[in-house]
């Protein structure tokens, strides 16, 4: 088939909501866009373990500690599901790793903010995982099948993340005056960065239109952001706390909450690498990769040795058989 016919077949599949599998023909740009999006997503899951890992040893109870470990372990799993999905598009794990560690690839800017208090574990679960869920649920229907399968698995696991965070805040909000203040402080610091997680405004998001045409994305950044804000505006009331936005107000006409202007200078500066923790996160990843090298090497050496051993023993068996013949 010529490219034109293949393109037509591809377009028809997209039109009819038939998923694209890795071995199917796809436009080069579709492949490139997916590799970028899925690998960035994977990197975010992996780097996203760092801010929370910071509190594992200082969780206030054994129960909270177990929960936090389980959550961080889930994020590692999410990273792995996504790297595997990206690999089906013919990029190797090593290449992706290299892109992350060299700073060539991006990851979600939210993880470049520090986790200063225990309440941050609550705010991250509620707001950051909450925003991630809003982003990820429509991605379960994304047009590239391995990505969609990965997202379905991830979404099943995410809802506990959001709930455990909310519960941390709820507990603090019902505690002493200091605890309540700590919860409010965490929300104050995490709110705007979470709202920024949905990316630039639609008008400033050059890839959105094409991604939606390919059904990689199903909703625009601004639509998802609005959904998130509406959800949080209701949930914060149950906590008895406040969202740090004086302009947040129900709009009866729109049937949505209006909200204040996002500090886009801050957004772009963190994206460009000038956030409070960009360097710290990258150096932690690089150290983990380098310090783990001997383990990977040893595993490969051991596997090669075992392989050689089993080969020589099968050789013996086969000679035995031929002798008997």
């Amino acid at each position, binding site marked *: 088939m010529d490219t034109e016919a293949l393109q037509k077949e591809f377009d028809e599949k997209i039109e009819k909501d038939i998923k694209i599998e890795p071995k199917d023909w796809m436009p080069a740009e579709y492949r490139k866009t997916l590799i970028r999006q899925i690998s960035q997503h994977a990197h975010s899951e992996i780097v996203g373990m760092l801010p929370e890992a910071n509190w594992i040893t200082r969780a206030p109870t054994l129960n909270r500690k177990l929960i936090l470990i389980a959550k961080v372990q889930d994020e590692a*799993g999410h990273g792995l599901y996504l790297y595997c999905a990206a690999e089906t598009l013919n990029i190797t794990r090593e290449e992706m790793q290299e892109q992350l560690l060299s700073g060539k690839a991006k990851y979600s800017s939210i993880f470049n903010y520090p986790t200063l208090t225990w309440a941050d574990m609550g705010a991250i679960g509620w707001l950051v995982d909450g925003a991630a869920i809003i982003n990820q649920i429509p991605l379960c229907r994304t047009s590239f099948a391995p990505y969609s399968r*990965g997202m379905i*698995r991830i979404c099943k*696991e995410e809802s506990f993340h959001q709930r455990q965070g909310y519960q941390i805040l709820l507990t603090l909000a019902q505690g002493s005056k200091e605890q309540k203040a700590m919860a409010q402080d965490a929300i104050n610091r995490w709110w705007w960065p979470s709202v920024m997680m949905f990316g630039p405004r639609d008008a400033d998001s050059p890839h959105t239109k094409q991604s939606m045409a390919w059904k990689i994305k199903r909703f625009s950044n601004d639509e998802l952001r609005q959904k998130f804000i509406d959800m949080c505006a209701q949930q914060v009331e149950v906590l008895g706390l406040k969202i740090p936005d004086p302009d947040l107000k129900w709009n009866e006409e729109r049937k949505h909450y209006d909200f204040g202007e996002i500090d886009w200078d801050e957004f772009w500066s963190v994206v460009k690498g000038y956030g409070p923790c960009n360097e710290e996160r990258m150096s932690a990843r690089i150290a983990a990769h380098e310090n783990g090298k001997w383990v990977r090497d040893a*595993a*490969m050496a*051991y*596997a090669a040795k075992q*392989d050689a051993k089993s080969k020589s023993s099968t050789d013996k068996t086969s000679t035995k058989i031929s002798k008997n013949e």
Partner: protein
Amino acid sequence: MNEQPLWEVFIRNKQGLDHKHVGSLHAADARTALESARDVYTRRMEGISIWVVESRYIHASSPEDSGSFFDPANDKVYRHPTFYKLPDEVQYM
């Protein structure tokens, strides 16, 4: 480069069901592949049995030929029970 090979992971969720492909992972050997598969794909009791197979051993039909490859099944509607119209009086069939 010392690249760990890719493995495909198949999981049986419940006694009596088929193993089903769930994804893939990198591991140095079969034993570590099984252990990683347990950690990555069965953290919530999703499985009671795991198969791992190195991806390079899997042979797949190609999507470009799928038309002609599956063609023999195309025109044999008589293999389906709905092909046979029976009088309404016939019961339990």
